[in-house]
């Protein structure tokens, strides 16, 4: 009997940690700017919940309980540090006894400020995504480290260095002014998309327990959309990720072999996710502010169209790539353009686009070599194709893709 009560309490702790972690950390740190302190206080509260809830029952408002408890440990911490009371942040002025539950349940959602802090220009761009994953979603350093190919110790140190900078470096918890918003929002979107990209590569391997990083990224984009419903690029990013996520089941065959997008069986795509992606993309278009993520989503939308039409409109894809490379030139965009133009107008032209890419950027960019190998093979230039295949195989991390390219190389 007590076993099931324990279990119920544990599940409640897990659920509220999952759903409210970012909101609680954001609220607890918005005035102090002390993310590490807020996180510590919240973990302490979660630990207390694990012992108190099985005994006393799950409180009516678990989130409010955690907030009150976490706040108490922050107050204790401040007192312990003998901080004079007039320097105490406003939100701590409420003493232990005057905290009212009604107030706790209506606390403002400060996650938007937190997202902007995580992707602040004063913070190393490489740390934007890890910071978000930790402070907004509550992922631990070890888990983040694995995905980012960094040792857990190093990731822990980098995270705490970034948090110290946020606390002591005068980085304000605020939503940027209108004139800075596009640029600042871009950094937030980039960070979310980076998490998705890593999760996408990760899923190649064995199924991990729990949610993958790709799903976490979609969750983050949904949170952001909820907070900024009028931003076209937020919808663009969400649409892009949903289109990719829709194809999860089609990316490998029964034997775990890699299946390229143009050969995937559209019947295996998730119609629900495709439709949701299309809705966001259509809604975004209404704002008349085209951006990088909308264009990338539009490219994926053309691919998704194959489910209905049975063919890929490569000309449409090349046009979207042209616009994409105009507003946001990247080596990935150029490589994608080369692949599309090769389908639309022949391998020669695709190869010419590849040749025009800055050669300093390509030595360890795997997709460049994969596309190059494919185009050279189509042109019957076998020795060069084999060479390019070797480069692509040598740079591949995913054993399924390595095997696929080895087969193609022959």
């Amino acid at each position, binding site marked *: 009997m007590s076993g099931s009560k324990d279990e119920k309490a544990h599940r409640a702790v897990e659920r509220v940690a999952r759903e409210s972690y970012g909101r609680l950390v954001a609220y607890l740190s918005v005035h102090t700017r002390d993310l590490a302190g807020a996180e510590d206080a919240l973990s302490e509260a979660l630990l207390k919940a694990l012992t108190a809830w099985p005994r006393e029952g799950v409180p009516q408002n678990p989130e409010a309980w955690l907030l009150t408890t976490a706040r108490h440990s922050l107050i204790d911490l401040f007192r312990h540090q003998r901080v004079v009371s007039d320097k105490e942040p406003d939100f701590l002025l409420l003493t232990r006894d005057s905290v009212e539950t009604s107030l706790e349940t209506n606390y403002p959602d400060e996650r938007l400020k937190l997202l902007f802090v995580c992707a602040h220009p004063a913070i190393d761009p490489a740390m934007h995504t890890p910071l978000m994953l930790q402070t907004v979603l509550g992922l631990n350093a070890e888990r983040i480290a694995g995905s980012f*190919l960094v*040792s857990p110790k190093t990731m822990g140190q980098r995270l705490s260095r970034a948090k110290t900078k946020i606390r002591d470096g005068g980085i304000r918890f605020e939503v940027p002014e209108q004139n800075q918003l596009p640029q600042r929002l871009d950094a937030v979107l980039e960070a979310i998309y980076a998490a998705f990209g890593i999760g996408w590569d990760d899923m190649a391997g064995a199924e991990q327990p729990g949610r993958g990083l790709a799903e976490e990224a979609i969750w983050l984009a949904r949170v952001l959309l909820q907070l900024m419903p009028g931003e076209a690029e937020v919808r663009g990013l969400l649409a892009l990720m949903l289109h990719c996520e829709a194809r999860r089941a089609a990316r490998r065959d029964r034997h775990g072999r890699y299946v390229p997008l143009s050969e995937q069986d559209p019947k295996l795509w998730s119609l629900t996710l495709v439709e949701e992606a299309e809705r966001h993309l259509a809604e975004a278009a209404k704002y008349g502010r085209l951006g990088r993520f909308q264009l990338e989503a539009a490219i994926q939308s053309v691919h998704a169209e194959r489910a209905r039409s049975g063919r890929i409109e490569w000309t449409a894809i090349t046009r979207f790539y042209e616009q994409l490379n105009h507003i946001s030139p990247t080596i990935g965009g150029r490589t994608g353009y080369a692949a599309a133009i090769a389908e639309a107008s022949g391998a020669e032209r695709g190869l010419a686009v590849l040749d025009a890419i800055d050669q300093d950027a390509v030595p360890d960019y795997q997709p460049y070599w994969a596309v190059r190998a494919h185009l050279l093979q189509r042109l019957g230039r076998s020795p060069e194709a084999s060479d390019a295949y*070797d*480069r692509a*195989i*040598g740079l591949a*991390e995913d054993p399924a893709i*390595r095997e696929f390219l*080895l087969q193609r190389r022959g």
Partner: protein
Amino acid sequence: MQFALLIYESREAFASRKGEGSNSYTGAWRAYHKALVESGVFVGGDPLELPETGTTIRIKEGKRGVQDGPYADTKEQLGGFTILELPSVDAALEWAARCPAASYGAVEVRPLAPETKRRIVE
């Protein structure tokens, strides 16, 4: 900075070495080696013969001890090493992830110790 990638391989991986150029073990390694060389990071390295060809020597209290095979009998054994010249450990970990052994065995990344070497060599 120079880093060593220490390659650990399973019994099955050692067994699949024998195949000719077309097999996927050899093909993947050839491609990886080519990518390292073309990217200008390769310094040196070699595969090692199978673990059972090894002999381990230890002198304890003046007595010679000789053991067939490697030092420890574990599932994965040292199968080779590569030395790379790279700007940071992050870059070394990236190359380690691309190493074929990372997906069927394990790759340990260790910085070389030039300071220690200097003290020894001087």
